[in-house]
C-alpha cells in the first residue's frame, strides 16, 4: 500500500515538474569488506553530488560469505543485487553463462584502453568486457629492511626460493617473537591454495595435465609442499594453519614477521597508519626456482552487473564512477596517493606523483609478469594463475586446501596430504565428467 502511495506521488511529481529528478533509483551493491571498498563508502558524497537521483545501498560481507551469497543469487536469478564485487575467477565463468551485463558501451571518458592488459584480459570473454576492475593485484615479497640489515643480508629485487629460505632462517628469532616468514595456511581456494598454486607454478607443478588428470602425484608438487612446510615449520609463526591474508597482515603490521609473500595491495597497509613497521618495509618480486615462472598470482576485484538487474543504467553509472580515473584522483586528494586502489590503469603508473609511492613499480612489475593463459612451465588445459577457471574449482580447491592445511598443522603427513588431494580431485573430476 505504501508502495502504491509512493508510486502515485512519484507519478504526480513527474507530471507536475515534468522531470525525472524526483524518481530516485536505489541500487544495491554487494561488496567485500576490504580496506579499499570500505574507503569507497566514505567517499560516496562525490557520487551522490554527481548523481542525486541514484541512491546506493551497501551490502558489505566477508569474502567467502559474499561469494556464496552473490553466486546463489545470480545463479537463481534472485535479483537482490544490482552491482556485484567479483573476482577474476568468477568473471570468465559467469560471462560465458550470460549472467553479466556487457560493459563495452561505457562512455569514452571511461577510457577502456587505459586498463592494464593483463587485468583487462582476465575480465573479457569473447571481446566483451564483463566487469570493470576496481583494483588489481599480484603477489610479491614484503620484507623488513631493518631485520635483513641486522642479519647482514640484502634482498635481491628478483629473489629465488633459496634466497627466501636463507633470509627466513637469518631473521627468525622465536624468543623475540619474530618469525622469518609468514605465509597463508588457512584452508580455502582463495587462501592457502592461492599462494600454494602460485608457488607450485614456479616449481613447474600444475593442477591438471592436458587430459584433465590431476597432478598431485608429481615430483614438482612434492617439492613445492616440502619446501613450503619446511619454511613454515622452521621459520613460521605458531598457528599458521589458521592464518589467511588478514591474520598475516595483523602479524606483519605488529612487527612479528620478517617476510610476507602476499597480495600487492597489502603494501599500502603495511606502510600505512595502522602499521608499527611502516617505514621499514622493502619489496621484491615473488621468488622463482630458475624455471622461468615466478610464484606470483593475478587477481582483480571488479564490479559487474547481473543480467537480471532492473536498474542497469543506474548500476552502470555507479560502476563507471567507482572505477574511473576521476575516482583515483579523488582518493588521492583525500587520502594520499599511497591509498589509491592500485593495479588497474596504466595512467596511474605513468603519473609522476604515484611513481613516488615506494611499492608502485614493484606492483606493476608483478602484475605484468603474471600470465593467466600460460600459468606454469608446461602447457595446461586451463586458464588462471592461482586458480583453475572451471566451476568445480571452488569446491576442489578448498578440499585440497584443507589437506594442505592439515599437513601444516601436523595432523596429516606430507605424503598423505598429497595422496588425499590426488584422490579427491580425481573423484570430483570424474563426477563432473572431465575424466571419462
Amino acid at each position: 500500500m505504501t508502495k502504491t502511495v509512493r508510486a502515485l506521488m512519484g507519478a504526480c511529481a513527474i507530471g507536475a515538474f515534468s522531470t525525472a529528478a524526483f524518481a530516485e533509483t536505489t541500487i544495491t551493491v554487494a561488496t567485500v569488506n576490504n580496506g579499499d571498498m570500505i574507503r569507497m563508502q566514505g567517499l560516496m558524497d562525490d557520487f551522490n553530488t554527481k548523481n542525486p537521483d541514484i541512491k546506493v545501498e551497501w551490502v558489505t560481507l566477508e569474502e567467502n560469505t559474499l561469494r556464496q551469497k552473490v553466486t546463489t543469487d545470480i545463479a537463481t536469478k534472485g535479483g537482490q543485487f544490482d552491482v556485484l564485487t567479483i573476482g577474476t575467477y568468477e568473471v570468465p565463468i559467469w560471462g560465458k553463462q550470460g549472467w553479466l551485463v556487457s560493459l563495452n558501451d561505457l562512455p569514452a571518458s571511461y577510457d577502456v584502453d587505459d586498463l592494464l592488459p593483463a587485468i583487462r584480459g582476465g575480465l573479457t570473454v569473447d571481446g566483451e568486457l564483463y566487469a570493470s576492475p576496481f583494483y588489481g593485484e599480484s603477489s610479491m615479497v614484503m620484507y623488513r629492511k631493518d631485520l635483513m640489515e641486522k642479519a647482514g643480508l640484502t634482498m635481491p629485487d628478483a629473489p629465488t626460493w633459496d634466497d627466501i629460505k636463507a633470509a627466513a632462517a637469518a631473521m627468525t628469532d622465536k624468543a623475540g617473537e619474530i618469525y622469518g616468514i609468514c605465509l597463508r595456511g588457512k584452508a580455502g581456494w582463495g587462501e592457502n591454495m592461492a599462494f600454494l598454486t602460485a608457488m607450485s607454478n614456479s616449481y613447474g607443478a600444475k593442477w591438471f595435465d592436458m587430459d584433465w588428470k590431476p597432478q598431485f602425484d608429481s615430483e614438482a608438487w612434492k617439492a613445492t609442499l616440502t619446501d613450503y612446510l619446511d619454511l613454515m615449520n622452521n621459520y613460521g609463526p605458531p598457528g599458521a594453519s589458521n592464518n589467511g591474508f588478514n591474520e598475516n597482515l595483523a602479524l606483519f603490521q605488529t612487527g612479528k614477521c620478517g617476510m610476507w609473500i602476499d597480495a600487492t595491495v597489502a603494501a599500502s597497509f603495511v606502510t600505512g597508519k595502522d602499521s608499527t613497521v611502516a617505514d621499514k618495509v622493502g619489496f621484491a618480486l615473488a621468488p622463482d626456482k630458475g624455471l622461468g615462472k615466478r610464484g606470483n598470482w593475478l587477481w582483480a576485484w571488479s564490479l559487474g552487473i547481473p543480467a537480471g538487474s532492473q536498474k542497469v543504467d543506474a548500476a552502470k553509472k555507479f560502476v563507471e564512477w567507482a572505477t574511473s580515473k576521476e575516482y583515483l584522483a579523488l582518493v588521492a586528494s583525500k587520502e594520499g596517493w599511497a591509498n589509491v586502489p592500485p593495479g588497474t590503469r596504466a595512467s596511474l603508473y605513468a603519473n609522476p606523483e604515484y611513481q613516488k609511492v615506494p611499492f608502485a613499480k614493484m606492483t606493476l612489475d608483478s602484475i605484468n609478469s603474471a600470465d593467466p593463459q600460460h600459468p606454469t612451465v608446461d602447457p595446461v588445459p586451463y586458464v588462471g594463475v592461482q586458480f583453475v577457471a572451471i566451476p568445480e574449482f571452488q569446491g576442489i580447491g578448498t578440499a585440497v586446501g584443507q589437506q594442505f592445511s592439515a599437513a601444516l598443522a601436523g595432523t596429516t603427513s606430507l605424503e598423505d596430504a598429497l595422496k588425499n588431494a590426488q584422490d579427491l580431485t580425481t573423484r570430483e573430476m570424474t563426477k563432473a565428467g572431465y575424466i571419462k
Partner: protein
Amino acid sequence: MARAVSTRRKAIVTVIAWGIGLAIFFPILWTILTSFKTEADAIASPPKFLFFDWTFENYVTVQERSDYFRHFWNSVVMSVGSTVLALIIAIPAAWSMAFIPGRWTKDVLMWMLSTKMMPAVGVLVPMYLMFRDLGLLDTVSGLVIILTLINLPIVVWMLYTYFKEIPGEILEAARMDGANLRSEIIYVLTPMAVPGIASTMLLNIILAWNEAFWTLNLTAAKAAPLTAFIASYSSPEGLFYAKLSAASTMAIAPILIMGWFSQKQLVRGLTFGAVK
C-alpha cells in the same frame, strides 16, 4: 525451612560462585572493554585491563561503515514479529494438546520437534527459489515467516509443558459454572498462562535474534538484521580487534540487556516441564 548456615561457609560459597560467574562472563566483559581501546592497545602485551585511553572511536568507525540502527530495527521487527506470530499459532495448539489430549498428542509433539532437525544448509537452494518466486527475498516479512516456522516447535512444546501444570480441576469448576470454551480460555486460562506465555516469548525472541543462517542468506540490504551486520566483521583488514569488539558489543547489547532485565521471568518459564 531456612537452613542454618555459618557465615564462613556462606563466604566461601560466595567467593567460589563469584569466581566462576566472573570467569564465565569474562569473554563478554573483555569484548566490551576491548571495544573502548585503540587498535594498538587491544593487542598490547601484556594486555591492558582497565588502564588505557578510553575511546569511542571504534563505535564511530563501525557506525560510519554500516547503519547500525537499521540493522537493529530489522532485528527487533523480525524477532518480535515472528514471536507474536508463533504464539498466535502455538497457543491454541498447545492448549488443546494439554487439556484435551488425544491418542496421538505425544507423537505429534515429538514429530514437531523433529522438524527442527532438518539441516538448513541442505534446503537453502529450494527455499531461495521459493522466496524468489514469492518476492520475499530481502524482506522482513520473509524473515518473520521463516523464523516463525523454525521456532514454532519449541514454542508449542514450551507452552504445552507450561499449560499442563495448570490444574484441570479449575477448568472443571469453570465448566460447572457454565463457561463455554471461549470464556474458559479468556477468563480462566489466560490469566494463569500469562507467565508461561511471557517466558516463551522471551526465549523465542532470543532464539530469533541470534538465528544466523537464514537471516544472513535470505537478506541483502533492506532487511538485513544484526547477524548480517556482524558478518562484515568476520575478518576485516589488518588490526581489527577493537572494531570487532565494538561491532560485537553493538550486536549483542540489546538482547543482553533485555535478557538481564527479564531474567526472573525467563528463568521461571524456562523449564520445559523439567520441574515437577
